[in-house]
């Protein structure tokens, strides 16, 4: 019996975006990372090509965070005391890129400063050869105050700066344009809001090749289904030819999952939740892997074991297969 699989003929594809710059490109990275280029729903070869495997980034902070899960302190140890050492440890663990999050305050509780942010980025750039995404603390004024000097400090490195949100994107986009960097456009789980912000950013003159789309996601059990479906819809729109959705997607399952109770806490929880450490690792890996299946181009995780597990999955998803 002949079985003919119904195929999709897609009109569009995801745009390719390159992060980082090597010395001969004006930066200091040992390699660049290109994401995007998919011409099908995730890994469905019979419809079109998947140009490359999804990228796995590791989230680090400019100083040791005060409120992360104890399991993460165990995993990274003393490296967390210094952003350079932490970035190096992440590179050694096999990360494709560094996702550097700037803190709201310095260790003594004062608001974070441009000097501190610059020096954290410098340490990361000096210690490892990976492309870097730099994310502000999430308060508009401080984000702008820190990300402008960061953009200057990393001039030529093709950093990604974020988060650009509908209420605060102009200064970040202007800093990216002035210093030849990229931006991360972030909107709360909504296809139209996502498109709208990309339009506003391109209206300022930043080309699409320098924008990553962050559709936001929830952790497993805390709204993952919203993020998952928004990502599927964005990818379908991209394949149908909607230019403003044809950008690679970056999501942060590490940050989402490690703040939920299932991961953060080992005591005083229902017995049915099982062993804490393994549960926490499953929470991050299952969330991240599900988002990879929904179309994520970059997943940012926190635990090195998740990085290892996802690497095996993405490698396998790229293997050619015989069907019928």
């Amino acid at each position, binding site marked *: *019996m*002949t*079985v*003919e*699989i*119904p195929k999709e003929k897609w009109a569009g594809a995801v745009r390719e975006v390159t992060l980082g710059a090597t010395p001969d490109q004006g930066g200091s990275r040992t390699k660049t990372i290109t994401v995007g280029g998919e011409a099908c729903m*995730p*890994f*469905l070869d*019979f419809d079109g090509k998947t140009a490359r495997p999804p990228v796995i980034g590791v989230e680090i902070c400019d100083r040791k965070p005060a409120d992360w899960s104890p399991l993460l302190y165990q995993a990274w140890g003393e490296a967390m005391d210094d952003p350079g050492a932490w970035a190096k440890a992440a590179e050694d663990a096999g990360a494709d890129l560094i996702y550097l999050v700037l803190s709201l305050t310095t260790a003594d509780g004062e608001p974070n400063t441009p000097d501190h942010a610059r020096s954290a980025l410098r340490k990361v750039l000096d210690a490892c050869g990976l492309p870097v995404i730099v994310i502000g603390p999430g308060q508009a004024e401080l984000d702008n105050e820190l990300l402008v000097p960061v953009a200057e400090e990393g001039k030529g490195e093709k950093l990604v700066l974020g988060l650009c949100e509908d209420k605060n994107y102009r200064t970040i986009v202007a800093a990216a344009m002035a210093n030849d960097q990229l931006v991360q456009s972030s909107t*709360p*789980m*909504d296809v139209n*809001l996502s498109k709208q912000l990309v339009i506003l950013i391109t209206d300022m003159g930043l080309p699409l090749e320098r924008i990553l789309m962050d559709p936001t996601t*929830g952790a*497993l*059990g*805390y*709204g*993952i*289904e*919203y993020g*998952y*479906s928004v990502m*599927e*819809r964005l990818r*379908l729109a991209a394949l149908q030819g909607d230019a403003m959705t044809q950008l690679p997607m970056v999501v942060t399952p590490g940050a989402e999952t490690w*703040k*939920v*109770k*299932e991961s*953060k806490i080992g005591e*005083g929880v*229902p*017995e*049915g*939740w*099982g*062993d804490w450490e*393994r*549960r926490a690792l*499953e*929470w991050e*890996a*299952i969330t991240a*892997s*599900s988002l990879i*299946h*929904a179309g994520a181009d970059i997943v940012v995780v926190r635990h090195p074991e998740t990085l290892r*597990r996802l690497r*095996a*999955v993405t490698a*396998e*998803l*790229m*293997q050619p*297969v*015989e*069907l*019928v």
Partner: protein
Amino acid sequence: MPLTGLEIYKLLPQTNCKDCSYPTCLAFAMKLAAKQVELKDCPHVSEEAAGKLAAASAPPIRLVELSGGNGKLQVGNETVLFRHEKTFYHKPGLFLRVKAADDVEKIKALVSEASAYQVDYVGITLALDGFAIDSDGSDASSFAAAVAAAQSATQKPLILLALEPALAKAGLEAAQGKRPLLYAAEADTASEMAALAKEHHVPLVAKAGTLEALAELTQKLTDAGLEDIVLDPQIEGFHEGLERLTAIRRLAIKSNFRPLGFPVITFPGRDGAQDGSLLAAQHIAKYAGFIVVESFDPAALYPLMVLRENIYTDPQKPIQVQPGLYEINSPDDKAPVMVTTNFSITYFSVANEVESSGWPAWLLVADAEGMSVLTAWAAGNFDADRIAKAVKNFGTEEKVAHRRLIIPGQVAVLSGELEEELPGWEIMVGPREAVDISGYLKAMWS
């Protein structure tokens, strides 16, 4: 794929005899397409046309039902490839593999423990759906004993993993009166297995390594009179599994390809070298109907069961709780008032934290159209106006003597506007995450 009114019309006598009580055959066809009348209302339809119409109105993926002592499980009847297109209807059954070659007491112990295992997730009870009794390494009598042992320890449905017809027969006899899933017919055992499945009225798995061989096998089983079939396309890895599961779903839904219009069974992690949890997660999101897991491990099962709830949540109807003023830990008029949205995951995250903190508190649940805090705020469903209305409508001012309201940290920006909407109230900005509520109350509430 259901036929349109016009396609149905072409199969009707087109005499406009009105015996169906509709003025024209076309009018009747339209009603039929809308499933408002039944075909038997037309006394003149030909047998051939009736056959075609019945076939076309059957669901693209057959609904298959299993039953145990008193537990029932239905899978199949799915209609879309992406959950946002409508919804996924029947959650895949999660079954635990039990080795029949093990000692009977060991089987009983494992099955009772795993059968009793349940976890509460936002008010929903999560549990395993049944057990797959694996005949590998056992003979007919020890397999029958294992099936009996499992049934003595659970009311949930079983899957009988027995490729040898003699073993299958022994297992089915031991499961008499229940409706297990029989696994499986292969090309060379198709007729024997079909006969056993028919005799015992149980659904049967068709197992083959290519989609073509699988389609041929189900055809054989259908010709033998079986209707309840489940597919085992023998998927192995992440990529090949994803493509094969997608191909089967597409063939059923887009091409109405009957030979593969059945639920699929998968065995993630059967090959011990693979990441079984992540494979199972893929199978949950991408179209499996039955998933057999290898070990009883709550740390891995709990997240998988949560994923299954999430993926199978109807996107049109977020799970909501009733807006109102909820009492936690018997609050009095001095207890803090905290506001959140009526999205059930948000509600339960907050309510569980407050409850376990031991603080008596009032939880004010505003009507935010069932969205989470940030999403509702972005969509204009959780603003100062709505929160103020909730404070007034649910009688908060009569319940507490103080006038202090704690709002979620993620909507700190609302505090100014809220103070205008609620004169006399002090607005306090709470933590961004529910997990920090206890610490916040300790530090900020006196």
